[in-house]
């Protein structure tokens, strides 16, 4: 059975002056899968993700997100995706309820739609008692979970998570990944970058980037078999380290 492609990238190149951040990236992402994007700092993960989100334009290559060309109609893409950046980005001086209301409204929902969904969401996350608290008063773990919930509040086709679990404790990370699974089970494709190699095992497929190129792309178990390593961490060290001796 041919699975539906929700992201198609072919020969994506992004240059900043003489520096090539993304060098001929080619990959597809299927609907409903959890797609992990791994790579060392500066490997070009965030650059690629920003192009997929319509925040940046490719220098060349073909990028289709939810069937829409990222070079031509990035604003159309924005209607269909959710995004959570590594910098925490809810409004600190608004309450939990006000943040949800704002982002719901921005994605075109009316107050009539927002209020019942919001209350159901708070209930599900056991956040109801925090509803009228300012974001700045919440602990980091709760903020991250809430930011993710807000990123998928409008039921996007794809949600992009840029290092969503950096800086949170292991228990919260586990809960966070439960939320990711729950989201994927709703049919929302999850595109996630991460530094934590153990998290790579939670993904359906992973891509490893190094120096602007894709050096590996498959399911975690297939990659382990292919390279004969015991863990994703060993795999990563083996193939993703920049080739210092060639410089």
């Amino acid at each position: 059975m041919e699975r539906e492609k929700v992201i198609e990238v072919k020969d994506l190149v992004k240059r900043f002056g003489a520096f090539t951040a993304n060098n001929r990236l080619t990959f597809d992402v299927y609907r409903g899968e959890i797609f992990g994007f791994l790579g060392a700092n500066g490997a070009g993960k965030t650059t690629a993700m920003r192009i997929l989100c319509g925040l940046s334009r490719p220098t060349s290559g073909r990028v289709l997100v939810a069937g829409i060309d990222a070079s031509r109609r990035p604003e159309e893409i924005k209607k269909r995706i959710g995004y959570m950046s590594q910098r925490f980005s809810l409004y600190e001086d608004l309450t939990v309820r006000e943040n949800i209301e704002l982002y719901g409204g921005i994605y075109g929902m009316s107050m009539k739609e927002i209020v019942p969904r919001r209350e159901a969401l708070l209930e599900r996350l056991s956040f109801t008692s925090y509803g009228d608290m300012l974001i700045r008063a919440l602990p980091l773990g709760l903020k991250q979970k809430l930011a993710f919930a807000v990123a998928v509040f409008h039921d996007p086709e794809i949600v992009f998570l840029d290092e969503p679990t950096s800086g949170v404790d292991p228990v919260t990370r586990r809960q966070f990944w439960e939320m990711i699974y729950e989201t994927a089970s709703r049919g929302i494709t999850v595109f996630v970058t991460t530094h934590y190699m153990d998290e790579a095992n939670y993904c359906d497929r992973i891509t490893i980037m190094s120096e602007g190129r894709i050096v590996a792309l498959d399911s975690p178990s297939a990659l382990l078999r292919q390279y004969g390593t015991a863990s994703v961490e060993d795999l990563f060290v083996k193939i993703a380290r920049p080739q210092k001796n060639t410089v």
Partner: protein
Amino acid sequence: MKKLIFLLSKEFRQIRRNPFMIRAIIAVPVLQMLILVPAVTFEVKRIDLAVIDNDRSQASRELVAKLTGSSFFVVAATPATVTEAESMLFSGDADIALVIPPDFSEGLAGVTRPRLQVLVDAVNATSAQLSWSYLTSVVRDFNRDVIVSTGMMPGNTTALSGGSVPGISVSPRYWYNPTLNYKYYMLPGVLVILITAIGLMMSGLNLVREKESGTIEQINVTPVMKWQLIASKIIPFFIIGLLDLALGLSIGWLAFNIPFEGSLLLFFACAAIFLVAVLGLALFFSTMASTQQQFLFVAFFFVMIFILMSGIFTPTESMPLWAQQFNWVNPVAYLMRINRMVMLKGSGFSDIMRDMGMLTVLAFSYLTLAIRAYRKRA
């Protein structure tokens, strides 16, 4: 449109929760009006005289008495030599040194023409000229008294008052500001400074702050349109600007009893157009700055230039041509003129139509500039 309402309610909630903003919105107009209006003045009220009286006669004492009797002049010292007087001018202890020659009274009696020497500290050219003209008018009065009392120039004494040419009387009527109250001149200008500062600083800082905290990136990845975002950043500060203008004007009425001859509606309409121009400019600057410091530096630079060149202190007509040409794109210059005309002269729409039209063009251009410069991407 619905999205804009969500964005606006977010902005107003944030403003309401920010105690600094609330304080600034109230304190800035109150302090600016109460401090700047009475403080910024070119009126010269006290002139310190150093008198070197080499004559020591009845006539020289009468002259000095006439000067000190005028309420402007105070004899700060009576040095013996001109050198001493010069050092007083240098140290700032005296503003004017008046040297009365030894043959002063003799001259008055008709032997020689008496010559007074006057040394003026002219570091501040404006106050030096004012002091000088006060002094000459007192001396002129003194002359006239001498003429009358000695009968050397017979005639009707009243006809001689005020003018140097006997027989012609010049009595000026000062229109639009009959009492020559400097506050009336400054107050409309201070109102312009007020809304320039509020408009340019608050709105620009707001957008740059969102850049710094990263929230703007979250907004950029949503389908919000540029004009919606810009409108949500402009409208709150537009309203605050007009409220502060009303507050400032009320203080003008209560504290300084400023006359308001023209139409309030016209006054606020012009201020509204002006605010759009200034807010557009503020957002344009904020698209170029990535930190609040950078924005403040750029904004402060332009605010200074705009205000100093606007004609608040010195008439724009006496500026060099290039400066007058610069004022074509200086929104502050237009409102400075409009405010004074509407408040003091009671000018109507047809009188200020040209300025109002140019201000509208500027508002439109700066707003377009801001929208074009804003990028929903890195």
